């Protein structure tokens, strides 16, 4: 299913991929460049260059500390990408570890795991993440763990439902009759077949996680200053929205590019999965 020969792309999916890759590419490029070079140090304040409108020296202007917005956006993309990637990794691992056994064994194991997952999902996600960060203190690591935990049930669900479907298929029954051990069935027989479903879920998870992270940073419970993050930049600039709209516009654009890029890619994956399945 994953071999290149069988990869099928509908034109619709291709359009989504292209658009998504371009948007995502902008953010990722900014991130990659920021690893080696930013026009100014993103944290360097300059009291003599406060709130400059976009100009040649500062293409995106400067903020109320006189920091270069372009440099800050570039370095903010780092946290956005890092937090969403690490958070999704945690959610994915936890979700898979919980979801596949739940779907495979069913019964009380399933009931227990799902009850826990459901009670986590009972909280509006952002609320849970906020409270978790409030409990353990605001830091990038805590945000990642909080988001990972909040999102884990989503992945667990995908895995569980997928596993429940797959385990009814003949090849799993066959494997059981052949005497393959359950852990091997789950890990080597079921998991590879979940990948096509997990892939769009992962991409959309990245986007949703970024939504949450930026929201939390906006409330001051995410990335901590002086480190730049889109959410924090937006909340800091709200006061200057009338006098320095560029402080709002550029981070907002980058944030939307990233999320939208991911949505497009996941949409492409989803369309492909649906079309591929129907073939």
């Amino acid at each position: 299913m994953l071999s290149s020969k069988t990869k099928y792309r509908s034109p619709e999916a291709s359009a989504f991929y292209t658009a998504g890759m371009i948007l995502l590419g902008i953010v990722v490029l900014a991130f990659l460049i920021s690893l080696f070079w930013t026009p100014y140090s993103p944290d360097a304040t300059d009291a003599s260059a406060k709130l400059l409108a976009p100009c040649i020296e500062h293409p995106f202007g400067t903020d109320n500390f006189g920091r270069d917005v372009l440099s800050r956006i570039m370095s903010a993309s780092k946290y956005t990408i890092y937090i969403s990637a690490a958070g999704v990794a945690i959610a994915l691992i936890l979700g898979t570890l919980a979801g596949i056994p739940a779907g495979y064994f069913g019964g009380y194991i399933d009931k227990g795991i799902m009850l826990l997952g459901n009670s986590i999902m009972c909280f509006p996600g952002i609320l849970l993440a906020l409270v978790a960060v409030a409990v353990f203190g605001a830091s990038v690591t805590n945000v990642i763990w909080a988001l990972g935990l909040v999102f884990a049930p989503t992945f667990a669900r995908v895995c569980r439902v997928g596993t429940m479907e797959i385990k009814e298929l003949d090849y799993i029954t066959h494997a059981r009759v052949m005497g393959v051990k359950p852990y091997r069935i789950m890990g080597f027989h079921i998991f590879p077949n979940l990948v096509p479903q997990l892939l769009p879920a992962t991409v959309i998870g990245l986007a949703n996680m970024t939504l949450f992270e930026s929201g939390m940073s906006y409330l001051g419970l995410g990335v901590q200053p002086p480190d730049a993050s889109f959410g924090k930049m937006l909340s800091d600039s709200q006061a200057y929205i009338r006098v320095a709209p560029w402080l709002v516009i550029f981070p907002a654009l980058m944030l939307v590019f990233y999320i939208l890029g991911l949505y497009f890619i996941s949409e492409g994956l989803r369309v492909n999965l649906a079309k591929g399945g129907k073939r």
Partner: protein
Amino acid sequence: MTRHIHIVKVHHLTLSFPTRNDPNPKPVLDDVDFGIRDGEILGLIGNSGCGKTMTSLAIAGLLPENAEITSGSIKFAGKNLLEMSPRERRSMLGKDIGMIFQEPSTALDPLMVVGKQLEEVLTAHKENIQTKEERHKTITDMLELVGFTNAEEIMNRYPHQLSGGQRQRVLIAGAALLKPRLLICDEPTSSLDTVTTVSILQLLKELCHNLHITILFISHDLSVVRGFCDRVMVMRDGKIVDRDTASDILSNPRNAFTAELLTNARLDTRIMGFEPIKVDYTKDPVLTATDITAGYGRRLFERGKNKDEKADNKVLHDVSLKVYPNEIVGLIGGSGSGKTTLIRSLLGLLPHSGKVEIKSPRIGVIFQDPVSCLNPAHTIKWHMSEALEASGKANEIKGEGTYKERKAKALARITAVLEICGLGEEHLTRHPNELSGGQRQRVAIAMCLIQDPSLIIADEPFSSLDASSSAELLKLMTDINREQHTAFLIITHNIHIVRQIAPRVIVMSNGKICEEGTTSEVLTNPQSEATSKLLDAERQIHVILPVQN
């Protein structure tokens, strides 16, 4: 009304699906020209994608929006349908032309009780002025006509509370409610079991005669058509390639393609000559099952549901059977007789009471569906080595030596087994989706073989394969039986196959074994009602249905 000999006349119809990239694609229907005579049952046969469904949709006026009729005309009772307004055409549906479709399970709105859906047929046609009571009467009458004795009750049921056959009857009732002159049946029986198929065909025949409804019957299965239709047309690639009366076309096909279809419908022609081998019944059986009772448990809060179904949810009742070494046993039974549950119990996949003794470390199993029998994520080689590892005999085969040597030995064994099953080395690196259905079933058998089982259970292995693949598979199974001395328990609904290769047969019905004995005896002289029913249905498919008046 003037009577036309042809109620429908399709005149040189050409239809295609133009797209922006390809404004002149290959037509789906190419110069199709035929007529349906008033009162007849016309069969339209062809493989999937040959255009038979498009023909019916064109007549009904339900073509997809992107379809374009480039030339030709369709006349219904003398009026050219293609010149009518959409509104006029719609008003003909249900009133003049009725339709039933293949999949009765999804063809009814799951949210609406059956009676209401039938009532919509009546209310949709404004000229049909009836009071509520009259409508109710019309519907109950029709439901009784299609064979329901409890019409009132059926009306208040939701589709999911009906069986497949019942749903198809409801759909027929809906299509026939306004007594249309033409009834288009698009594969109405292909998802039903043999016994139900026979009863539905019987019903359609009765409708044709009693209500004087003309039927256009579409199917891919010649055997169904044979006793049922008056005339048959064969379609291929959008063209009608052959047409004749039903008896002539089937007994004496003039067209090569028709002949091919015919052979596919008759598996028996190819599997002659497999001589069953002798079995020593004094040996210890490889499989002994005693008093197996099993069923599907209920969830906690489902208790008290479906009170009419009683508390007993057991599917199997005290089933005992034995399979001797080197034997091929056939297990037959209608759908819902408990075959599958029995197998799952034997394989230890279902909790059950009773005892299952197996005289070998492994039993192999192959399943019905060649699509899902292999893991799409892995290569054939992976499948084989996984089976080898799981058998617990991997080390024995690999022997001592370096990792490379051991790997080479394992590979040698894998290739050897694959070869037995008629698969070459080139298949090792392929993924399942690069193989045909028959090849996949072979891989499944190879996976069983590599584990060296004394018994292979095959659950309807032929039902999804075409005739030639089935025949090859059968040959492979008998070969293995002969050469590897592996016993087979073959579950099937195809009595022909059992007759050919299984010396012993077990018949199941209602979760019990109702008959057991040598195949020739059981099939020629059935002792139980279930067996005779199965045999009847099988026979009826192949003979002209008598019309009961």
